[in-house]
């Protein structure tokens, strides 16, 4: 019986995991869609940090001249990079993933072709991470207009934004895979994203917080992004910065696997 069955069988083609052709096709799709709306995305990515810098820079800057050894504009200008990275990764991760999965059924159409969920998630997250890395530079450029001195270390900032954005985009994809409706995102936005964003050392140093809160902030990946960006701009400190990198990479890998697992459960029944 087994021999009869095996007669008509095709030779087993080698299938590798994470095939570049599959990931490349999805990246091409994203890039093509992006060409239709890059103006609005770029507009808000530049305007948002400008508003933060103006509001906090002039508002708080009038009250506090120096924070943690920096002028307030330097402190906020570098800190807001993490905000830009977070917003440009987690929100598209949440919303566009949910829309493509639930309403457009884009993922159903793709998965009928030779691509698996692992490749699909990798491509989607890679795309958002690339975008986040680039848009993370916007606050620095704006801050330079307001007096931040350029530094060679700024060239590393897109890479920091990429790794951080990878983790948060994958986090967004995970939630979008679990959520039953877009309304569910409110829970995550208020209980997770807002605290992460506020208690990251962006607008005020976390050591100004009560002990328990600043300890908790150590577990906030965004805090490590903020610190790493500041060190890139004002001077690296080997030991602490290696820890920041390690936390960001670990967060990205963990979220990546989590996103693949949850989206597979949702798309394959």
């Amino acid at each position: 019986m087994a021999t009869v069955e095996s007669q008509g069988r095709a030779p087993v083609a080698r299938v590798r995991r994470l095939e570049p052709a599959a990931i490349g096709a999805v990246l091409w799709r994203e890039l093509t869609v992006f060409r239709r709306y890059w103006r609005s995305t770029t507009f808000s990515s530049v305007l948002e940090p400008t508003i933060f810098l103006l509001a906090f820079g002039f508002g708080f800057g009038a009250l506090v001249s120096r924070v943690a050894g920096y002028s307030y504009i330097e402190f906020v200008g570098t800190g807001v990079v993490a905000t830009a990275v977070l917003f440009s990764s987690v929100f598209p991760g949440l919303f566009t993933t949910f829309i493509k999965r639930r309403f457009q059924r884009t993922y159903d159409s793709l998965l009928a072709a030779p691509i698996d969920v692992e490749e699909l998630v990798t491509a989607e997250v890679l795309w958002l991470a690339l975008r986040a890395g680039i848009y993370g530079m916007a606050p620095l450029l704006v801050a330079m207009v307001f007096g931040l001195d350029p530094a060679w270390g700024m060239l590393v900032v897109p890479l920091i934004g990429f790794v951080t954005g990878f983790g948060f985009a994958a986090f967004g994809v995970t939630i979008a895979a679990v959520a039953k409706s877009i309304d569910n995102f409110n829970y995550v936005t208020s209980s997770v994203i807002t605290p992460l964003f506020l208690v990251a050392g962006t607008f005020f140093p976390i050591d100004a917080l009560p002990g328990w809160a600043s300890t908790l902030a150590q577990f906030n990946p965004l805090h490590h992004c903020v610190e790493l960006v500041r060190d890139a701009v004002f001077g690296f400190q080997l030991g602490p910065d290696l820890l920041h990198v390690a936390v960001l990479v670990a967060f990205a890998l963990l979220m990546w696997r989590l996103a693949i697992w949850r989206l597979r459960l949702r798309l394959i029944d």
Partner: protein
Amino acid sequence: MPSPAITLRGVHKRFGEITAVAGLDLDVPAGTCLGLLGPNGAGKSTTMRMLTAQTIADSGEIEVLGYRLPGESKQARARCGVVPQIDNLDFELTVRQNLTVFARLYRVPKAERAGAVDRALAMANIAARADSVVDELSGGMRRRLLVARGLVHRPELLLLDEPTVGLDPQVRSELWALVDELRSEGVTILMSTHYIEEAERLADEVAIMAEGRIVARGRPQDLVAEHVGTEVVEIYGPAPALLEAERRATGEGFASRRTGPVLAILGAERSNGALPEGYRRPASLEDVFVVLTGQEIE
């Protein structure tokens, strides 16, 4: 005999309390067109999704183009084209861009990609709208694009899930002509449908599915001859008259079915004047369908 392009053996699939597929056995010989006919909820779409491993069977064996699913599904999918029932086109992209994404996914080499897209555009008769954004297309155009998308890499096997639902007659007959052409080129086609006429016209063989399994399988004319004979007498009238006629037919040993105000008596060619008078017509696949599934076509 050529090896089957699709083999399903004892396939089961449950979704919670609902059993969608219950012991399905089905072969689709290479180079033929098989029509999978069944009422809504018979398990046709689940079966289609299992062939691309987007639904994983609870038990049973599935082979597509010689690849064992779900483990080797990616290889099988590379050589399959899929036309889904629902419109899942990228509505923000142009027609050509939609096809290019899939040409890339299906690993059409770079040098051949533009040619493959043009060929698919021509086959589905949408070349004139190649640079329109999908959002601007009519329903018929969108369905043509869905078909083109499934053909861009010249698949050996085409899975069509209710390909002409909701289309106007012109687009429908155009798609029928395309399917016919593909079949003559040797493409294997599995087409789920609940349009009897579609199955009769296009399919070499028909498999009738009800409650998650195949209840009959064969060439359309053979199925008609085997299950309902060659002629049917249809009687129209008020319910009591139909009841009386039905009683008479049953008494004479004839099978019959009621559809609203119509009583159809099957195998009428065997009658020697014993049956009530009515309108005589040739038996059809629809009669087979109703007899076997107990359900009406909508």
